[in-house]
């Protein structure tokens, strides 16, 4: 994964404590087919958006606590956090333009 690798350990400081820009988190797992399709799209967004937003992914198998806390039932699930709160959430494969539009709204 390019972008940031979020973990249960760094979620509080890396996502919730971020006070200036939106944070996009892609909840995924290695065995999930659609996640494998979503990942390269998230990677390109991470590259393109630069420092304007934080973009990263979280493996729900390796990091189960956060996924459980947010009630992630199906993956991929994308959540945009702003000031520590989820402002957009969607399950299922998303297009690049749909994600970018939501990220820009949250900026």
């Amino acid at each position, binding site marked *: 994964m390019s972008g940031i690798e979020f973990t249960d350990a760094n979620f509080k400081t890396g996502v919730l404590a971020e006070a200036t820009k939106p944070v996009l988190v892609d909840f995924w797992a290695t065995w999930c*087919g659609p996640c*494998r*399709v979503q990942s390269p*799209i998230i990677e390109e967004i991470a590259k393109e958006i630069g420092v304007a937003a934080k973009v990263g992914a979280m493996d729900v198998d390796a990091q189960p606590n956060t996924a459980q806390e947010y009630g992630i*039932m199906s*993956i991929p699930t994308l959540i945009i956090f702003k000031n520590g709160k989820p402002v957009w959430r969607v*399950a*299922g494969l998303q297009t690049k*333009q749909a994600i970018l539009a939501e990220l820009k709204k949250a900026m």
Partner: protein
Amino acid sequence: MADAIVYDVVVVGGGAAGLTAGMFAARRGYKTIIISQDIGGQASTTPDIENYPGIDFIDGADLMKKFKAQGEKYGAEFKFDTVTTLVPKEDGTYLVKAATSEVTTQVVILAFGLSHRHLNVPGEEKLNGKGLLYCAICEPHFYRDRKVIVIGGGSSAVQAATTLSKLASDVTIIGSGERLTAEAVTVERMQAKQNITVLLNGETKEVLGDTQVTGLRVLKKDTQETVDLNADVVFVEIGYMAKAGWVKELLETDARGQIKIGPNCDTSRPGIFAAGDVTTITFKQVVISAGEGAKAALEADQYLLAKSGKRGGRIDWGTKK
């Protein structure tokens, strides 16, 4: 919008057919771009591919990334976008409009594959991703002790029901016909499970729920009785279809909405070619789509050569070393 960039070849779709078409076109020296919502399409969601010649075993997403990289090596560009419209121009070129960009091109190769078939009932759009899902086998371990409905009577639906029954509290599978159409062995495997209920002759009328799925309204066609079934999760496994409606005005399609092609991937319109699962070819396989993509690009080459007054030769001997 500024003047659209001009390409020789625009490939719509980035699965096995589209990526291969892009690679072949770029190798012929054409300015080529592949515009797709994703890399690899259906093949990328397949964890193990064991029948691609020369490769014993590979993850589908990895194979598709190799396809893409190989095309890019020869100059094919790739862009994530959603193509929405093809506009034929007076000079014989095409304007390709996508959600965030537009380009003009001499040739279009359509290779956007198949998409999940949808129910087209109330509640479906609203609850998509909120307990209503289209990929059961992708995410079974989220359904522990939940009440699950699988809509569909084919192999993928029956396999999904069987897999889900290991974790879900109970599973109801709803087939629309008088029997399940999956292979006998698959059905037998499912019937061995205690917590699966089969409902036949069921027609889904509505997905119930406000912000999360709570159930499904089903018409029992044999008794004409409508019932509301409770569920935490509903899976739609009713197969795939070509979503070629947006090119229907321009091209001939068959009853299933697939683009009609000739033996060399030519469509009913000069300058537009089509390849892979979106077309009328019978077999939908990665190796076949790759071959079809190559054919479409080579036929596009013939078209471009003829258009520019040069003579084309159909045989591809490769380039002289």
